[in-house]
């Protein structure tokens, strides 16, 4: 269980200042209607290799299986057609693709038009770095044979299309705890 406590070093001064501002919240005027999670977001994350084989896919908007396959094929085609000197962002239908290439593997994120592409681009790098830390030098094989674990890591970082955690140790904490339980 100790692995959970990754950092108790806290922001005391920060907290204190915020507390000063704490007041009773006036009940905000809320719309009764359902707020869909539309707006700025990541719509999906894909890992595809140069041969067009999907290694991982995670969708944050409901999409039928048949549509997924079509989208993945298109996405790979889009990315493969891009040269090294070209922009890492591609327009695809009504959203944008942000992709990064690692050897033969592409990591692609679909984002809405108002998302900050560059920040997502860096998120993909962060994701790979986390994988690298967990698998100690990650390879495509690791991703293929540990599909479940890669998903678990991604789930810690992105939820409902929003970036929820980027701190590497926090991201890995739950998974390492599970591994420990499984081993001992």
């Amino acid at each position, binding site marked *: 269980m100790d692995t959970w406590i990754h950092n108790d070093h806290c922001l005391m001064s920060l907290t204190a200042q915020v507390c000063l501002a704490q007041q009773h919240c006036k009940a905000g005027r809320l719309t009764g209607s359902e707020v869909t999670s539309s707006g700025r977001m990541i719509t999906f994350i894909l890992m595809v290799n140069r041969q067009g084989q999907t290694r991982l896919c995670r969708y944050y908007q409901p999409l039928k299986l048949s549509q997924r396959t079509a989208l993945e094929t298109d996405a790979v085609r889009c990315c493969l057609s891009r040269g090294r000197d070209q922009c890492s*962002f591609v327009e695809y239908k009504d959203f944008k693709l942000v992709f990064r290439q690692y050897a033969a593997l592409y990591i692609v994120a679909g984002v809405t038009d108002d998302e900050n592409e560059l920040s997502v681009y*860096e998120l993909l790098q962060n994701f790979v770095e986390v994988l690298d830390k967990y698998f100690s*030098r990650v390879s495509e094989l690791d991703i293929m*044979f540990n599909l479940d674990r890669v998903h678990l890591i991604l789930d*810690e970082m992105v939820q409902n299309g929003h970036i929820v955690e980027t701190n590497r140790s926090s991201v890995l904490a739950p998974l390492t705890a599970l591994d420990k339980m499984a081993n001992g």
Partner: protein
Amino acid sequence: MSDVVEKTLTALPSLLSIDSQPGAAKLSSTSKLGSLIRGITELTSKHEEEKLIQQELAAIKDQASSPNTSMRQMKELMVRAIYCEMLGYEASFCYIHAIKLAQQGTALEKRVGYLSVALFLNESHELLLLLVNTVLKDLQSTNLIEVCMALTLVSQLFPKDMIPAILPLVEERLTHPKEIIRRKAVLALYKFYLIAPNQVQHIHNKFRKALCDKDPGVMTASLHIYLQMIKENPDSYKDLTGSFVTILKQVVAGKLPMDYNYHSVPAPWLQIQLLRILSLLGKSDPSTSEIMYEVLDESLRRAEMNHNITYAILYECVKCIYTIHPKAALLEKAAKCIGNFVVSPKINLKYIGLKALTYVVQQDPKLALQHQMTIIECLDHPDLIIKRETLELLFRITNAQNVTVIVEKMLEFLHTGQDDYTTIDLVGKVAEVAEKFASDNKKWFIDTMNTMFSLGGDLMQPDIPNNFLKLLSEGFDGGGGDMKLRHFAVDSYVSLLQEEPGKLPQRFLQVISWVLGEYSHLRDDLEPVTVLRLLAKLLDLKQASSETKSWVLLAMTKLCEGEASTTVLQQISETYCSSMDTALRQRAQELQNLSLHPELRARVLPQDVCKEPLEVDSSLSFLDAFVSDALAAGAAPYKPPHQRQDDLAQEKALSLEPYGLQLPISMSSCSLADRQSPTLPSMSSGLSGDSSDLSLKAGSTTLKLEKVKRVWGKEGYLAQRDPVEEPAKVEAHTVVHSADQVGETSISQSQTPLATVAASQEKQQLASSLFVGLSSQTSVSLMGKSELTPQRFSRKAKGEVTSSEVSKQTSNSVDNLLCNILLDSNVDPEASLPSPRQTSQTSYGSAAAKDIALIDNERPESDMKRPETCLIRDNGLVAADSAETEEPFRTKDMCLASYLPADCIGTTYSEITHLCSSHCVDLSACHVHKEDCLVLVVFISNTSASLVQRLVVQLDSEEVEVSCISESPVEEVKSHHVEVCQYSLTVKRPLVHFVASGLVSFHTATGTPHTTPFSCKLPLTAFIRPLALSTEEYGTMWLAFSHDTKQKLTLIMDIQDPLRATLNVLERKLHLHVVDIIGMEGIIACQLLQDQPCLMHCRVHAGTLSVWLRSPVPDLPDCLLYHCQKALQEHC
């Protein structure tokens, strides 16, 4: 780090078959998953893959359903199933096993179970309900990992209806000692907030606690909720600005633990999130923005490091600086920062720089000037996405001077052949700017639109051709040029048709045929026969859709003139009179008959009618006779579509009625229903459902309502009418131009030449043409999004009713009703009608006084001076415009009731409400429910010490008839006196609420004139009176009434007799008369003044009250039903 990753990954493909890898302990390539993956990798064809996966799925299914499968094996199976679904093969049989695994597994197995549930199911999947119990159990587990898993799943997907079941547990976890649990709980609440904001309304305080959590992770998580809440309602969270600024300051200064750093940038994504929140808070709020300037400056300064992520932060920072209230020094720095972006050799930075610039030029178009050369370079960039983004930027800086060049660039880009989405988007933008600046260069406009229609094809949004036609028919604001525009259009279309019309898209052909039909007579040198022949060619085109053919036939109808054309037309109409397409057949019939009868045609399509506002009888009241005949002959009364569905739901028993006939029109053309398509009945008003007299001032020539007939009804085909006579009955009209406009036919020779940019020309020249007009602020027409919507096109504001409005107004009464409900949701019909007991003056007066006293106590001091405002409450009468009063309104004046006319005393009357105050005159009103009429009593009180003279009170309404019943009009009011005007009101047609508005004008003692508008609102119930009937009378009347509506209402829970209790409430509140109650059924009768009965039949059914209202008056059942619902809701 990334180098390392790349190195290992490069070596990959060759390693597929080798197991001895670093980290191989985690590789289970010998497992079944391994063999599956290896098998797939070795395959060469899609067909083989399919075969293999089907085998795999069968094996998984087999093993998963075996009782001996351990959870460990089940976990393996799930991963394999995830793999199969990833490849696009459905494994739905696994879903239930995934849930089972989450239920029964431990540790990693359980986690994989949850994971597969999250991957397999969507939010609305019914199997998710089976998981609720597991989640509940895990949330209460002592094992932190299990709590953590459950919370993760909940924040990913959870059935909305089950939120209350776990909400208390999640809330409890907010105070958990472990920060990861707190963080996950906050994220779960964020999810709840997204799917059901009302459910977490009560825990806003806890969100604040999360924001102040000592762990940065929990604080970060809470920002998601705040971003969402602030987006919806920034004003409620202004007080938190300081906190967000403080947090950002500390993050920027690097006070967070090291592991929040990413490439030595402290918590970049957190910074981005905070900047987004700040920009929402500071938007057009100088004082809030003031708090942020320092930290934004700091952010700009700190982000000097050369890494992508710092640029991502800078982008967000620049956006924030340009969103909030501007500060010159910061703007300058931000602009410089963007400069660095756009000139960067790194293409990703260039892109983000362009995106930032696009955003910024909406605020400050001059900034584009600074970077003009870069923008020109980007326009020729080999990377399409850069080009595209540049066009987006240019679109934002379009003005009258550079529009031709920019549009040319956009069309150039379209020519290169883009995907559908880009085409639709760009075509829309071209149309938008072209129409905006059309008045300056009409020839250019027509040419541009031609190119645009040809390129956009049938992909474009349907409102583009519609707007174009509207612009053509209504003209510009400036006037004068409209004729020229039409001339250009006709000329260009004639030459287009002479070339190769087969290549043109359908939408364009439709536009062409409409314009030629409408305006080709403007060209004297153009023989109608020539145009007809050109149009006839279109009919023979293979690719012409039947919709296009309809447009063509309609255009021909307008053109049939002279011997020669009649022969051509006869042939055509004969061909299409036997068409399989009903719409086409109808057009052909019209064409045939109108071409044979010139005098009839002259009446239906007169040429020299001034463009007066048209009276459109959207209710099709001319068909009333036909309807009543049909009803008399035993036809079923018309039911609006929404009620038909209801009936189906209510009567699940055998339906003995024949099925209604479907409209024989494809859905694709239905989408054009409220547009100008002549192919189908575009107005959905029911045949007899709405025979109300809705007179619309439709100046739009594009609405061809009068030619649109209802062909099919619930009764089937309504073809007994003579198709020729029918349109003649309608107040027919078409657009023809006033004589003075026709005189202006000569084409102006003084067109401004098109600014063409030859490819060989210097970029500098392009720059000067692109950025012309940006340097001086005044000449710039900002194309910021916010400014786009209100006035897109410069055209005559006439008619006031646009086509969409017309369609809105004419859509059936239900929409009206809905609209009213939305608008008046806070209007309380009951409050306007005090109970009969309150009728005596004194009791009323004191009650009113008490009310005031009560409200005064609750009001803050600032409002104490004007107690009369307290009276403006949400009851039947609402004063719309209350002007400032100079003198406090005295309480004694509230006893206005004593001024009620003698004949009103003893009857029911509403509370007296304040209408308006002007200078020294106060207007109040109440309505008195007399037995045979409704009287509106207006009290005019003079609060000054001097005489008020030449008083005129006018009251008018479109919805009710107003007649003054005072013996002599009030002309003056003595000081501190009250005069009374009485008006008798009669309903013109039923509505949920009626508004009467008026003007009061008078001269003070000094002779200064004053005029103030006022308005008052009356509920329908004010006009409802009980109708005493016997059960037999009721029975005969019931059968005779044609308008009806059905609905289920809530039943008042009364132990003894819920039906009677409910009906009593309705009787009391709405002045209905309960005729009889037998068992579980009750009948009620009432009348709308004067003598417009409405009957109501109620039946208790499955805990609800099924009501069925019938009346001879259209809309009355619907409107009354609304008040019934309202009354019962309030009672509960």
